[in-house]
């Protein structure tokens, strides 16, 4: 069940030995455009961060095929439990860049109401893209619990939960995997082994032979896949999703890929990533790999890249502009959503905040009456 040799589909030259991707030409191009949008989003955010317009961002260069390939195996009725590096999954299913930009700016239209850091998205539509948490690994048991609910209600849904190589050391990995195995719930565990947990390389993360083998500790199948091969990821995730839908329980998938940038805009990877290693992986760029595939299928020509990237970038830049124009959340947003109703002590704290703002002549106070 556990394969150490990663599954791959797209050959270096773009051919696939007759593999059926199960996607129309338009579907394949949508996947491609989504990867370009991820890159455009990254590039834009990097610039915005360097310019001091936003505070923080998380780059995805190198792992786009894993994100998009995995997302493509889900229906919109399924649930996604993403890590902070997975917004490509949201884009694939139709979340608009501008909705993400509201979060990057923490503005009044951010679904998190400006409470979370950038890249901590939360969406309900068009797919459940579960609110991203900073603590690593806590969302694995959440996916398992949500999948338990799907199972007892007899729904034809699955939960896909995504996390990093570092995430396998977390408590949530152990308890989530264990409970999922025992309960046989419809959940797919996607470990994105991108080589690093910030500066910690995989060999300092675990002594195991890769990550897929950890599935054996929980009585579920473990599969290793070439994470830079969109179709291979799509295939193994689809198989796991079908197993889950059929009531056959969870699967652990390890997608082997490489983080080609820093951990975040705060990180300087040259302090610890060997240059040769990076160069080696740059050769295996997942977007270029998919382009060769599209080209082999006659769906893409080299000159398409710049045009399509420019289209994506234009949309992302427009999104940034729009988000930048939206003001900050209202002052009272500090005090709401702590509970379903605002309790008396928070009402008092809110009113005191408004009173102070008004006394100090701070516009944030509005008319000075705590509105809730």
């Amino acid at each position, binding site marked *: 069940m556990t394969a150490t040799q990663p599954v791959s589909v797209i050959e270096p030259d773009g051919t696939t030995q007759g593999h059926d991707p199960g996607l129309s030409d338009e579907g394949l191009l949508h996947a491609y455009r989504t990867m370009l949008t991820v890159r455009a989003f990254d590039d834009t955010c990097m610039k915005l961060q360097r310019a001091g317009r936003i505070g923080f961002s998380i780059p995805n260069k190198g792992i786009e095929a894993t994100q998009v390939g995995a997302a493509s195996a889900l229906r919109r009725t399924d649930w996604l439990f993403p890590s902070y590096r997975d917004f490509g999954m949201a884009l694939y299913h139709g979340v608009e860049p501008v909705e993400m930009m509201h979060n990057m700016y923490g503005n009044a239209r951010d679904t998190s109401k400006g409470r979370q850091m950038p890249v901590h998205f939360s969406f*309900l539509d068009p797919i459940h893209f579960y609110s991203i948490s900073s603590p690593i690994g806590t969302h694995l*048991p*959440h996916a398992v619990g949500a999948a338990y609910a799907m199972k007892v209600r007899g729904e034809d849904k699955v939960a896909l939960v995504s996390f990093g190589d570092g995430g396998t050391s977390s408590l949530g990995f*152990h308890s989530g995997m264990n409970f999922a195995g025992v309960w046989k719930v419809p959940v797919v565990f996607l470990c994105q082994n991108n080589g690093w947990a910030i500066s910690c390389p995989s060999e300092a993360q675990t002594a195991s032979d890769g990550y897929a083998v950890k599935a054996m500790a929980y009585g579920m199948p473990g599969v290793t896949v070439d994470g830079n091969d969109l179709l291979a990821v799509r295939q193994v995730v689809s198989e796991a999703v079908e197993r889950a839908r059929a009531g056959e329980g969870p699967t652990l998938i390890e997608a082997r890929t490489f983080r080609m940038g820093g951990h975040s805009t705060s990180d300087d990877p040259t302090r610890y990533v060997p240059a040769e290693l990076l160069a080696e992986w740059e050769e295996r760029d997942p977007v270029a790999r998919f382009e060769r595939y599209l080209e082999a299928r006659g769906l893409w020509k080299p000159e398409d890249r710049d045009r399509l990237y420019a289209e994506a970038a234009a949309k992302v830049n427009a999104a940034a502009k729009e988000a930048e124009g939206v003001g900050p959340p209202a002052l009272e947003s500090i005090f709401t959503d702590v509970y*379903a109703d605002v309790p008396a002590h928070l009402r008092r704290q809110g009113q005191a905040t408004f009173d102070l703002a008004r006394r100090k002549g701070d516009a944030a106070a509005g008319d000075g009456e705590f509105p809730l």
Partner: protein
Amino acid sequence: MPTLTLVQAVNDALKTAMRNDDSVVVFGEDVGPKGGVFLATEGLTSEFGEQRCFDTPLSEDGIVGTAVGMAMNGLRPVAEIQFQDFIFPAFDQIVSEAAKLRYRSGGQYTAPMVVRTPYGGGIRGGLYHSQSGEAYFCHTPGLKVVIPSTPADAKGLLIASIEDPDPVLFLEPKALYRAVKAEVPEGHYTTPLSTLRTVRKGTDVTVFCYGAMVPVCEKAAEQAAASGTECAIVDLRTLLPLDEEGVLEAAKQTGRVVVVHEAPRFCGFGAEISALIAENAIEYMEAPIARVTGFDTPFPNTLEHHYMPDHRRVLDAIEHVAAY
């Protein structure tokens, strides 16, 4: 009306909630066929089946973490932690996840769930089967913390907690599980959260307490009354969100306050009661605000009767503030 012990009232509440709402599920270590180590979940698996009351692997992180996932997807999980002392592996899931989910997602995802667990001393459980950890949780916005002290409240508050839209930590005073039997209404009813219970009226001293300390305070108040000091006793019942107005009012009525809990004193829940009063009603105070608490040590075993506040220590504090 049937008379039930507190743990029977908990059991009754679970059955009532499960009959009322198919989405209520109960799980934890040994809660299934064994019925829980204190038998709080006895009979649930046989009545509701294994999908609605079941045992879990030995992982509190997993228990609470999966409960969050169930809650956000339409179930109403009631998770049991076998002893409150063993809740700490789930601390991250409670504090970082359950309590903050609504806030961080702007209300898109929520965790209406209950974590039930027996707490407190009195069973010679030593360091790890005796703790009262309420203060650890009361510093956590987004969470509710409830502690009953009577069978009727146990049932009414537990049903209210299960029906609440927010995550509730429900701490059950194990010392009282079988200590008293009292009348408990049949069928469905709720006792509203964030309301105080006046256990006893009195004009001289106000005693704030909760859980297993309530009968201890009652006994102390009786003895105080015998020598002419009339104590009001307030059972806080919901520690978070606390009925702060009610606390201040009760404190003002006598101007003399004693706060009692089993947990260690330093940064214990009693500190918040004192601080509230010192901030909002100090001008009414005619005496120091006294605290009677466990010591600032781990919980001992053989000498637990010296560690836990008893009516003598409470009475001593009542006499002290009354005479001030």
